[in-house]
C-alpha cells in the first residue's frame, strides 16, 4: 500500500512519539467506544435475524475509522453519516435507542439529539457530501469554529457528487472533512474495478486540497489525522480528503451474501487476525498498564447492559402511527395531504393505532 500513514501497528507497537498529542485517557476512551460499537453491531445483526429489526448494514471491522474520527470532533461539529456509520453517530452523541428505531423502520429513527448536529443517515451514495460543504461554508460565513464531516465509502468516489463536493470545498475553502472508509468493496465490486486510480487520496491533488491515506484500522492514526484536518480547517486552509483503509468483516447488509463475490472466510479471517482495530489497541493498552482482564470484564458487562437498556427503550418506544406519515412534509401541510389524512379512517386505515 502506498504511503499509508500508521501510528499503531497491528501488533500494538507505536511507530511515532505521540506524547503530548494523545493522552492516556483518550486512548482508553477509544478502546471503550470501539468495544461498545462492536457489541452494538453484533446485537443489531442478531435482532435482524430474529425479525425484531429490518435490513441492517453492519460496520464491524471499521470501528477505528468511525470511532477515531468522531472522537476528534467537538460537540457542535456537523456529522453526515451514511447507513453504515452508526458507530460514528453513537460516538458523536446519537443514542443507540435512536439507531435501533431507525433500523426498526420507525418514523423517528433519524432525529438528532438536540445538542448535536447529526444528520439522517444518507441512503443514496455520495449525495450528502455536498451538504457537508454547505454546512461548513455557512460555519465559515458565520465565523463559527465548527467543521463538517462527511462519511462515505470507496464506491461513493465514483459518483459525480463526490467530485463536485471536493471541488466546491476547494474553491470556497470550506472547513469540511471528507472521511472515506475504503473497505475495498462497494457491495460486490472491488476497488480495482471501481477505479483505475491507485488510491482515493490522490484525487485530492486534482482539486489542490489536502489528501491523506491512512491505516483506517489504526485509531491513533485516524484520530491524529482528523485532529490535524480540523486545525487546518480552522486556519482557513480548507478541506481535507482522508482515505482510511479498512475492511467490513461481514456483509454489505443483512440482505447480502458476501460469499457470492469474495473469498469471505479467508479475507474476514485475515483482517480479523492480522489487522483488527480493537485487538491492537488492547495489546497496546495492556503493555502500557492501562488495561487488564478485570477492566475488560467490567467493560463487557457495562456494554451489554447499556445496549440492552437501549433496546428495551427502543422496543417500548411508542410505535409509529399511520397518521405520522402526514407530519413534517411541510411547515404547513398542503390541503391535499390534509384531506387525504382526514379520509384515512374512512379508507379502512386504523388511525391512532400503533403499527
Amino acid at each position, binding site marked *: 500500500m502506498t504511503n499509508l500513514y500508521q501510528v499503531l501497528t497491528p501488533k500494538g507497537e507505536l511507530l511515532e512519539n505521540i506524547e503530548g498529542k494523545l493522552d492516556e485517557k483518550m486512548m482508553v476512551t477509544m478502546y471503550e467506544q470501539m468495544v461498545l460499537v462492536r457489541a452494538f453491531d453484533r446485537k443489531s445483526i442478531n435482532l435482524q435475524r430474529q425479525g425484531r429489526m429490518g435490513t441492517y448494514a453492519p460496520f464491524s471491522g471499521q470501528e477505528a475509522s468511525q470511532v477515531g474520527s468522531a472522537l476528534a470532533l467537538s460537540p457542535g461539529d456537523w456529522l453526515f453519516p451514511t447507513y453504515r456509520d452508526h458507530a460514528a453517530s453513537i460516538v458523536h452523541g446519537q443514542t443507540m435507542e435512536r439507531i435501533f428505531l431507525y433500523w426498526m423502520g420507525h418514523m423517528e429513527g433519524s432525529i438528532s439529539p438536540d445538542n448535536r448536529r447529526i444528520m439522517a443517515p444518507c441512503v443514496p451514495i455520495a449525495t450528502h457530501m455536498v451538504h457537508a460543504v454547505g454546512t461548513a461554508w455557512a460555519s465559515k460565513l458565520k465565523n463559527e469554529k465548527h467543521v463538517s464531516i462527511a462519511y462515505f465509502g470507496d464506491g461513493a468516489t465514483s459518483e459525480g457528487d463526490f467530485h463536485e463536493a471536493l471541488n466546491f470545498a476547494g474553491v470556497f475553502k470550506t472547513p469540511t472533512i471528507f472521511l472515506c472508509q475504503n473497505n475495498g468493496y462497494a457491495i460486490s465490486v472491488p476497488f480495482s474495478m471501481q477505479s483505475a486510480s491507485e488510491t482515493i487520496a490522490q484525487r485530492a491533488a486534482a482539486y489542490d486540497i489536502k489528501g491523506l491515506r491512512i491505516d483506517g484500522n489504526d485509531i491513533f492514526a485516524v484520530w491524529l489525522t482528523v485532529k490535524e484536518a480540523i486545525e487546518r480547517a480552522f486556519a482557513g486552509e480548507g478541506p481535507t480528503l482522508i482515505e482510511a483503509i479498512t475492511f467490513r468483516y461481514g456483509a454489505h447488509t443483512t440482505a447480502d451474501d458476501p460469499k457470492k463475490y469474495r473469498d469471505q472466510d479467508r479475507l474476514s479471517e485475515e483482517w480479523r487476525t492480522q489487522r483488527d482495530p480493537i485487538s491492537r489497541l488492547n495489546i497496546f493498552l495492556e503493555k502500557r498498564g492501562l488495561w487488564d482482564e478485570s477492566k475488560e470484564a467490567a467493560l463487557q458487562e457495562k456494554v451489554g447492559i447499556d445496549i440492552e437498556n437501549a433496546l428495551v427503550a427502543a422496543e417500548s418506544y411508542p410505535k*409509529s402511527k399511520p397518521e405520522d406519515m402526514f407530519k413534517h*412534509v411541510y411547515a404547513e401541510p398542503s390541503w391535499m395531504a390534509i384531506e387525504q389524512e382526514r379520509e384515512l379512517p374512512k379508507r379502512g386505515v386504523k388511525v391512532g393505532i400503533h403499527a
Partner: protein
Amino acid sequence: MSRKLTIIQAITEAMDQKLAEDQRVMLLGEDIGINGGVFRATEGLIEKYGADRVVDTPLAEAGIIGSAVGLGLNGMIPIVEIQFLAFIYPGFEQIVSHAARMRYRMRGQYNVPMVIRTPYGAGIRGPELHSESVETLFAHVPGLKVVVPSTPYDAKGLLISAIEDPDPVIFLEPTKIYRAFKEEVPEELYRVPIGKARVVQEGEDLSIFAWGPMVRVAEEAAKQIEKEHGYSCEIVDMRTIYPLDRDTIVDSVKKTGRGMVVHEAHKTAGMGAEIISIINDEALVYLKAPIKRVTGFDVPVPQFSIEDDYVPTTDRVKTGIIETIQF
C-alpha cells in the same frame, strides 16, 4: 413449451435469450456480474456471456446511463439495471436531457435504443428510498416509454419488446411480487406489445385501472366485493403507462359506466389524473359516478413500520369500489 416462472425468472430469461440472440445486447449495472444483481435478476449471465457483455460498472448512475446513451448511439443495445428506482436520480439528467431527446434533436438521424430496468414499489420492509413509485416523473418526459409488468408472462414479453424498441424504455419491475407467484411462461422468445393494456377480468359495474403490484390488490378487492355485494368489476392492467392504451380504457368505461384508478404513486399528478382526463375526453356521457382514485398519499413513502398504511390495500380499494358503485 412453457413452464412456471416467477417475474424475476421471466426477466432473467428475457435478457438471457436476447443476449444469446443479438450480439448488440449488453447489460450494465452495479453488482450485476458475479453477484448476479441485488435481486439476482442477472444471476448466471456473466458466466454465460462474459464481463464485456454483462458489465459490473463503477457506482455511478449518471455514468451508467450516460455511457449507455453513447453505447446505444454507436450500435449497441444497452440494458441498464438501477438497483432501486430511487437511486436513479443521479442519472436523471442523462435520461431526461439526453436519452429522451436524442432522436428529436438529431431529427431522427440517431436514436437511443436502451432499456433501464429498475425495481420499484413498497411492501418489502426496505429502508428509506427503497420503496418509491415515481413512474409519473418518467411518463411526463416526452421521448420515454414507461412499462410496468405485473405478471411473469408479461414481464418476459414486455422486456423483449422493450429491448427491441428503437427508443428508450423505462422498465419498472414490481419488487414486492418479484417472487410472489409463478405462472406459465413460454420458453421461446415472444413479444407483448408496448402500449397495450390487458383486461384481467371482465365485469359490468365498474372498471378498475391498475398496474404493477396494484393489479393483484385490485383483483383481491374485486373478488371480495363480488362475494360480499354481488358487484362485478372489470380489471384492466395498463402494462404500459406511457403511451397509455386509450382504447381499452374508453371501451371499458363505456361498458361499465364507472371508473377507478389504483396506483401506489402519490395521488397528486399521478397517472390516475391522466386516465381520468382520457375518460373525460372520450366517455364523459357514459359515466354514472365520479371516477375514483385509490392511491399512495402526497407524502414521502414512510419508513417501513407504517408503509402498509401508505400503499393502497384491499380494504381501501373495496371502500372505493362501494363508494363509486353506490354513488
